[in-house]
């Protein structure tokens, strides 16, 4: 009885795996071992990347009902930030003091509200004060950035020269501290002014508790310290990073890409998504607009060019490792897998994909946080009525989803060109993955990503072999989606009614 119910419960998953197995055996027999293994591994690489983009997309949609059209752009953002950290960290180190300074200023909001708690004013005065403060904030922010050569800091060569004799070849000059010091100060002021405007001084309906104010005070202190530290390492930081071990720097780049994605995701959720919960359509439109703004900003900074990021030495030693275990010693650029010569870096991407799948699965299945997400996908209001701050969970899920996509972006950078529209294709495929897997289901995203990755790879193989148009491979994913939707309109694991 229990066995039967297990089969019933996982029928979708089992049938998909069964179909894949049957097709795999046929493929192996018809194609021969070498082409089959090579194509399957390519498919897995693609699938791993699709999963990292689609997992966030499906959770964000399932829980928050937000279709994030900027997901591909955030994949791209992660790639650019990580790549910058890896090749020319000047840009990041130069901007971090200003970003931290702005955040420092913004945390002043509750403090301003608390200090002015006894001040009341008429509506007209309130509006004047608010717009005055807001305008002053923007003006001061402009002054803080005035004359700063951001585009100059971003300047990076098309094909990086990391392996050349001089590791500091890419580094771009920055203003000396003697000129720079006033910028973070002005930025703090700008943030404080904007926060002051947002805290609506004079409006009695907004109450700030002492606990809120105390928490803001602590955050202010921490961020102030961070700003000071970031200002001090601004010039020495890039040199230290570039002269450090290249492998370490690469893993640092993965982390930086994901963290930048997370930070950006948090800012987007708080500033753009959260105020629009009453108007869900606007949320979708905002993300669509954001994608364009991001792409244009990136083009402004780095030109609409395709950059090549070099692989870290860990995956770049000439020659071929006889098996994966030998690779751990030799760090060759290719590895022999069942007689197929395959780039070791792509195996690393597959490993990251599997690692993320397991981590996400454990998080969703065994943690309280995951339990809340699963419950929230079904009934947000009830979760809230149990005493759980659902909005806060939304922010975490958004941040997590964006961080995962950004990690996918920087992970993909060593083998796909870094360019402004690099995320578009992944976003499209990820949407198809989400539809196939069922909105809000992370296991559905995993199976869907696997299916699409393999379909793309085998489609490409067949198109090449039989001289067909490569469009066949691209169409195959949409055909799979159509079939799945005919059989199961809610997607393979869709449960939301």
């Amino acid at each position, binding site marked *: 009885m229990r066995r039967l119910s297990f089969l019933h419960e996982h029928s979708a998953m089992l049938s998909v795996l069964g179909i894949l197995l049957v097709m795999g055996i046929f493929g192996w027999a018809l194609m021969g071992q070498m082409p089959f293994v090579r194509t399957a591994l390519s498919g897995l690489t693609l699938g791993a990347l699709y999963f990292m983009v689609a997992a966030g997309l499906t959770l964000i949609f399932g829980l928050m009902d937000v279709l994030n059209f900027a997901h591909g752009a955030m994949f791209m953002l992660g790639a650019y930030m990580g790549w910058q950290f890896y090749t020319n960290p000047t840009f990041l180190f130069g901007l971090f003091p200003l970003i931290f300074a702005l955040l420092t200023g913004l945390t002043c909001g509750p403090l301003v509200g608390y200090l002015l708690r006894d001040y009341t004013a008429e509506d007209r005065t309130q509006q004047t004060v608010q717009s005055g403060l807001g305008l002053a904030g923007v003006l001061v922010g402009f002054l803080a950035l005035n004359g700063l050569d951001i585009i100059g800091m971003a300047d990076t060569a098309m094909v990086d020269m990391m392996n050349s004799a001089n590791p500091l070849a890419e580094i771009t000059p920055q203003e000396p501290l003697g000129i720079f010091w006033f910028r973070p100060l002005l930025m703090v002021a700008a943030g404080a002014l904007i926060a002051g405007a947002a805290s609506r001084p004079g409006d009695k309906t907004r109450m700030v508790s002492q606990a809120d104010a105390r928490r803001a005070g602590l955050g202010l202190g921490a961020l102030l310290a961070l700003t000071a530290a970031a200002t001090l390492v601004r010039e020495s930081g890039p040199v230290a990073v570039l002269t450090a071990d290249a492998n370490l720097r690469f893993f640092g780049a993965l982390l930086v890409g994901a963290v930048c994605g997370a930070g950006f995701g948090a800012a987007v959720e708080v500033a753009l998504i959260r105020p629009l919960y009453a108007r869900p359509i606007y949320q979708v439109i905002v993300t669509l607009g954001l994608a364009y703004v991001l792409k244009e900003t990136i083009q402004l900074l780095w030109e609409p060019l395709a950059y090549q990021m070099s692989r870290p030495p860990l995956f770049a030693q000439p020659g071929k490792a006889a098996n994966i275990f030998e690779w751990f010693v030799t760090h060759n650029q290719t590895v022999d897998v069942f007689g197929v010569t395959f780039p070791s870096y792509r195996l690393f991407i597959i490993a990251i994909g599997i690692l993320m799948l397991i981590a996400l699965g454990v998080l969703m299945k065994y943690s309280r946080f995951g339990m*809340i997400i*699963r419950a929230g996908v079904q*009934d947000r209001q009830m*979760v*809230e009525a149990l005493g*759980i*701050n659902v*909005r806060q969970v939304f922010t975490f899920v958004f941040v997590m989803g964006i961080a995962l996509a950004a990690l996918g972006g920087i992970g993909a950078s060593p083998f796909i060109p870094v360019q402004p529209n690099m995320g578009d294709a992944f976003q499209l495929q990820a949407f198809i993955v989400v539809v196939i897997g069922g909105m809000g289901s992370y296991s559905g995203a995993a199976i869907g990503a696997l299916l699409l990755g393999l379909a793309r790879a085998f489609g490409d193989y067949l198109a090449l072999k039989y001289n067909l148009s490569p469009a066949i491979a691209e169409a195959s994913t949409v055909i799979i989606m159509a079939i799945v939707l005919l059989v199961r309109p809610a997607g393979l694991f869709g449960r939301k009614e």
Partner: protein
Amino acid sequence: MVNPEANKSSPAANQDDILRVEGIHTYIGQFHILEGVSVHVPRGSITVLLGRNGAGKTTTLKSIIGLTPPRVGKVIFEGKEIQGRRAFDIANLGIGYVPENRAIFRNLSVVENLKIAERKKGDLERKADFIFSLFPDLKRLYRLPGDHLSGGQQQMLAVARALVPDNSLLLIDEPSEGLAPILIEQMMEAIRSLSATTTVLLVEQNFIMASQLGSQYYIVDDGKTVREGRMADLIQDKKLVNEMLGVGGAK
């Protein structure tokens, strides 16, 4: 006839009311659903909200817990005004909400459905014995996914979920809806025993259940509280019951 005065008269304020709802107006979208609901819930009792379908009983509960915040009026819980606060904030003051239609989390297991309601670590361990004494079935179903449960079992789980944290007030919406008579008996028994420790505000269409459990009643009609009093008096007044509760009232 409905007494037109009853509409205006606010229930007498009592020092020991755990919850006072004072003339709330609630809108859902553009629709004016509640047009003046006032309810006082004395501590340690079962208060029943009666009324026809669509009268605004469910919206009254949702307005208290903050899922549909009232635009006008006050909700006072333990002496503090709570209207306008976010729902999670209100719930954390110690209010449990059992929605209608067995709204459990069907994709979570029974134990997860209970676990998610914990506000402090160990809530469920402390309350497990009490919960299983009320609903022995749940112990047997502990690990099953929520969608494997029958309607009655889901309803019991929904009530049990509200018992996990330390709540001083429970808002229970139509616990008998769609249940077999024998399960209604069990549900009544459970609500009676949990009311020994917790105050209950109950919405109930089934007059037999309502009259046996409640010590006082409010009748909501067309978004307004039109009648209130002691349940014992209402049971005598067959005419009013028929008029206010319509078909299937007191038989």
